[in-house]
């Protein structure tokens, strides 16, 4: 039983990290869009 807990816990952690990869990728893309918008509006008088 305790073996199952450790194995599932480990698998869950790595699954979480894979989700973290996707989250960072989304954050990066969102940052690009926001950055591009800011760059466009920055020089508007």
């Amino acid at each position, binding site marked *: 039983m*305790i*073996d199952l807990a*450790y*194995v599932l*816990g*480990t*698998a869950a*952690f*790595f699954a979480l*990290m*894979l989700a*973290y*990869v*996707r989250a*960072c*990728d989304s*954050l*990066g893309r969102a*940052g*690009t869009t*926001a*950055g591009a918008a800011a760059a466009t509006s920055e020089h508007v008088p």
Partner: protein
Amino acid sequence: MTANGWLQILVFSACVLAVAKPLGVYLVRVYDGSLGGLRAVERPIYRLCGVDPAEDQHWTRYATSMLLFSGVSMLLTYLVLRVQHHLPLNPGHLAAVPARQAFETAASFTTNTDWQSYAGESTMSYLAQATQLAFHNFASAAVGMAVAMGLVRGLTHRSHGRIGNFWVDLVRGTLYVLLPLSLVLALFLVQQGAIQNLAPDVHVTTLEGASQTLAMGPVASQEAIKQIGTNGGGFFNANAAHPFENPTPWTNFWSMLAIFLIPSAMVYALGRMVGDTRHGWSVWAAMFALFLAGASTVYWAEARGNPIHAARGVDVATTDTSPGGNMEGKEVRFGVAASALYAVVTTDASCGAVNAMHDSFTALGGLVPMLNIQLGEVVFGGVGAGLYGMLVFVVLTVFIAGLMVGRTPEYLGKKIRAREVQMAMLYVLAAAASILVFSAVSVLVRPGLAGLNNAGPHGLSEILYAFSSTTGNNGSAFAGLTGSTYYYNTTLGASMLVGRFALMVPLLALAGCLAEQRAVPESAGTFPVSGPLFTGLLVGVVLIVGALTFFPALALGPVVEHFLTGAGALF
């Protein structure tokens, strides 16, 4: 302090400097693919694993490959440790490793931490040591180097987020760097007297007539990659204080040099790969300044000794017949200087091998190794991990410098925008949160306090050091903390996983962000990333971030202990 002691530190420093360029040039050739002497070995490995070595991976695919490789190999190690009593190469008929220890050990070796809550010689079969722990010693080090190279490629490439091929980096780092260096060091260690065999334990009668069991095993090979790969997990419980692991002053010196060998060279390789060797040397100089400050402080604190001993008339002066200073927990073969230097080197890097007990150092002597780890082990650091950790600080330095002059910060032609800083901050915050939250919880709950063997500020230092060491993937122990319990095996194992992978993911995201950009030409407003100004600013940022984050906790631990020791209190 003695002239001999300072000479050891200076000669060591000179050797670290001397190897940086030749090995750095070699590393560049390994990772740019121009070195091909072992292609006949590489190709079958790629074919067997179904890897296309020509594929240039997007950072998300690179990170996914790294996570899957680490996760699967960790679970395999867990399985082998749990069934080692049914497997061959177990002449001592050792039982299965308990589940909690198997989890912690699998996490420990997968993450390059090598924290050990067991005595290796009486817990692990030769098969477990040689196929699992030694495998991770190579693989985890190669993963660290691969991730660092991914980040450097992010700086040099304009490739829509593509940063190389994880599998190729993993294989080439192992084949061309770690295996040959380990082979040479293992042969040297055997020549010096380290043991290397598969024999069962030897039972002997001592001169006093008592019986003693001498553990045997493949020690030299394990020892070599333990140092070269900044792993740190010893074959024996006493680690590098054991004469079978570290038999002579020469092996002690070369062991320390082996720890800094690749990390020092990788910084030079950074300069070569980005086409600005002055930048590489500037980062190297920042690391060296921090190393020298740490080594000097620990040597001074340990040579000064315990003030309570001096107050009670114990002779702590260095004479021809006495090493002087604080010799508690130190090997008489190595003395104060070599023990202080070893402690600083092993915690500057994420190695964790020890030739003295850090718990027995003076309060300030113990503070420095702990702070080294908390700063992110960016002083040369672990293989790969030191370079990428320092590059995060470089990004923050450039960002802060940009804020000061009011321009969009640039680093080697790549703009440091909001998302690059977000990834850098996720990296810094994840490490700090793991250390401080796990430590805070442990001083509040009964199972956490039950592991303590010392009261007061020293007890806090033991817990703080443990979670700093595991989150920083260092692996050295302050000792004095009973870590072999369900609570500590599980929480320490979890902090290792967080400290490794929750940092690597935003780091690779940072690499991807940088790789998506086209480099802009340098202008008059670009902050120079070479020279003394940059080096000084980088050192300042490392210290300020570390001080702001950890000073409150350190003040309650080693700093308070230092002042109370001066007032005559012991813990």
